[in-house]
């Protein structure tokens, strides 16, 4: 039913421009896998190579272990959900959903039955005879999913399917998509530039930048131990310090900055490379007395109340901004503007990371 996908050294060039560079990833059967990255980083291109609309310039793509080179989209066991859904406006909903069956020569009664089953699955039981223009955005979304499921694909490819919806509905559909994926067991390859979406829905995430896959890991690992500065900044906020790393010992290293000497984690593969120090605002604490390690005296410059947390922007004597987030548990004390305090962070929470890996 569901199949894995392997990309081995896949490249894609448009003229002299390399849109995807040496992509290697192995997506497991039944997995919910997301590609996350900024606009133009090559996400859609990867998806279109898997579905067969573009042939890779180099490398091999396997679906369910089979090399799919030269196979046209209609010969691959994939179903693509388009960025703009691409529902057929001139067909009623049930014909839209059963189109894939119609072209396979399935008779009308069976098609109709199947369409109604799928409409129940996506929670739209009464829509069979409506036209596409009668549906709302969220309903169209579900129809597109039902249409893709109708051909019983072993892989579903979704290209930013929720980007057209408003915030509330988007969050609702996240849960729904995830539920449908679990129910059907089909491999989902999901594309998004929204980190929240990717982290909340996926079994694993591949973060991309400029045509390169930067890191492949499960959402926690992506957030907690990003492999480079790009991943760290794309997935969440950071306080960043420039400086020079000393020798590593036991995975930790000293880091000299103009604010003083810090200690932070240093991965073995980053040793010897130029690195910066990254620490999340929620791991940065502000106290009246100096912290036990990695502590800098600061002055509170700005306090903004965000609801679930309070963001405090403080400045060092050299003018560097440091942000600290305090969880709003109802009794948290908010620092006063202009107060002199100390910012500090635990060495285990801070990482010394190189910049993104780039082509060439």
């Amino acid at each position: 039913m569901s199949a894995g996908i392997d990309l081995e050294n896949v490249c894609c060039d448009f003229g002299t421009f390399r849109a995807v560079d040496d992509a290697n990833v192995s997506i497991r059967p039944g997995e919910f896998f997301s590609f996350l990255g900024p606009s133009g980083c090559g996400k859609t291109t990867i998806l279109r190579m898997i579905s067969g609309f573009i042939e890779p310039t180099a490398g091999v793509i396997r679906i369910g272990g089979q090399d799919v080179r030269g196979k046209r989209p209609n010969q691959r066991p994939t179903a693509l959900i388009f960025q703009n859904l691409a529902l057929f406006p001139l067909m009623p909903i049930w014909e839209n959903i059963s189109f894939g069956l119609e072209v396979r020569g399935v008779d009308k009664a069976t098609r109709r039955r199947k369409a109604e089953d799928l409409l129940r699955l996506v929670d739209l039981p009464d829509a069979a005879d409506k036209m596409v223009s009668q549906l709302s955005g969220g309903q169209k979304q579900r129809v597109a999913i039902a249409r893709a499921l109708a051909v019983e694909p072993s892989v579903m490819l979704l290209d930013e399917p929720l980007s057209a919806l408003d915030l509330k509905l988007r969050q609702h559909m996240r849960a729904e998509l995830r539920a449908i994926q679990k129910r059907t067991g089909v491999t989902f390859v999901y594309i998004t530039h929204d980190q929240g979406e990717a982290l909340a829905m996926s079994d694993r995430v591949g973060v991309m930048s400029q045509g390169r896959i930067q890191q492949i890991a499960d959402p926690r690992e992506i957030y907690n131990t990003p492999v480079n500065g790009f991943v760290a900044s794309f997935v969440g906020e950071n306080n960043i310090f420039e400086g020079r790393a000393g020798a590593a010992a036991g995975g930790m290293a000293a880091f000299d900055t103009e604010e003083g000497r810090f200690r932070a984690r240093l991965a073995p593969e980053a040793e010897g490379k130029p690195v910066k120090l990254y620490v999340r605002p929620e791991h940065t604490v502000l106290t009246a007395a100096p912290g036990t390690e990695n502590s800098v005296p600061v002055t509170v410059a700005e306090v903004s109340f965000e609801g679930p947390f309070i963001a405090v922007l403080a400045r060092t004597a050299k003018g560097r901004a440091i942000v600290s987030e305090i969880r709003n548990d109802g009794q948290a004390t908010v620092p006063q503007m202009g107060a002199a305090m100390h910012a500090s962070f635990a060495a285990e929470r801070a990482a010394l990371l190189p910049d993104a890996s780039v082509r060439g």
Partner: protein
Amino acid sequence: MHKFRLGLSHLYMGLFLLYLLLPLVVMSGAAFNDSKLPSIVPWKGWTTMWFSEMIADQRMMVAFRNTLLVAVAVAVLAIVVGTAAAILVNSISGRLRTALYGMMISTILIPGVVIGISTMIMWTKLGNAIGTDFILFKPGLHLSVLGQVSYIAAMVMLLVLARLQSFDAGLEEAALDLGASHAQVMRRILLPHLYPAIGAGAAVAFFQSIENFNVTQFTRGGADTLTVYVFSKVRSGITPTINALAFLLICITLVLAAVYEVNRRRRARAEAARLAQARRAEAEEGIGAA
């Protein structure tokens, strides 16, 4: 806007409509005048005699049938060729597209006389060169059809191309992705989207063919079409049978125009209702999700 000028502009519109429609009324009116000459003055009394004479006019009936045959053939060919041309132009780009497109629309600007003579000469010469007596290579209405198609196809092409530009090529990809063959994509996705334009193209081609004179005149051999027949009648002895014919044609036009208008309004209403429903669904969803 100045009141006086506004009134003046309404007046001008009225006069212009009068200018356009009055000649048609005069022509229709003459069909009922009991006078040997087609005119409304002097009025010699009411008659429907010219209609019965028209029906009795064998040559006119033959010409009428020929006209319909030619028009249908032209419409079919022009639709096929014009649609293919539109699809081709729409899916290529660069220099080739500019050149092809330019050549296609320039056919509209070639004088009918030139099309008629060149079509006639080419096919008869081709027949002589091959040394065949096959009917295709002799003067006749089939050459009129080919000549007319040569520029009417461009009109269909323009209509279809305009419609194609509103087509989302993603739909084709979606259908292919769902396993459809290229032929199925064409039949189920692309052509249905183009049908309104193809229909309009068929109507335009049909009427253009009916009113064509120049091309037909040079290619028809001995056969008559309505336009050619009316022309020869006007030049020689006119009887008001022509007016009777004109009256009928104008009536048909009016009926078609009315049908079109009613249809247009109905479709606009249906579309508005659908959009309203989508908006309602959208609103409910907002409440449901919140």
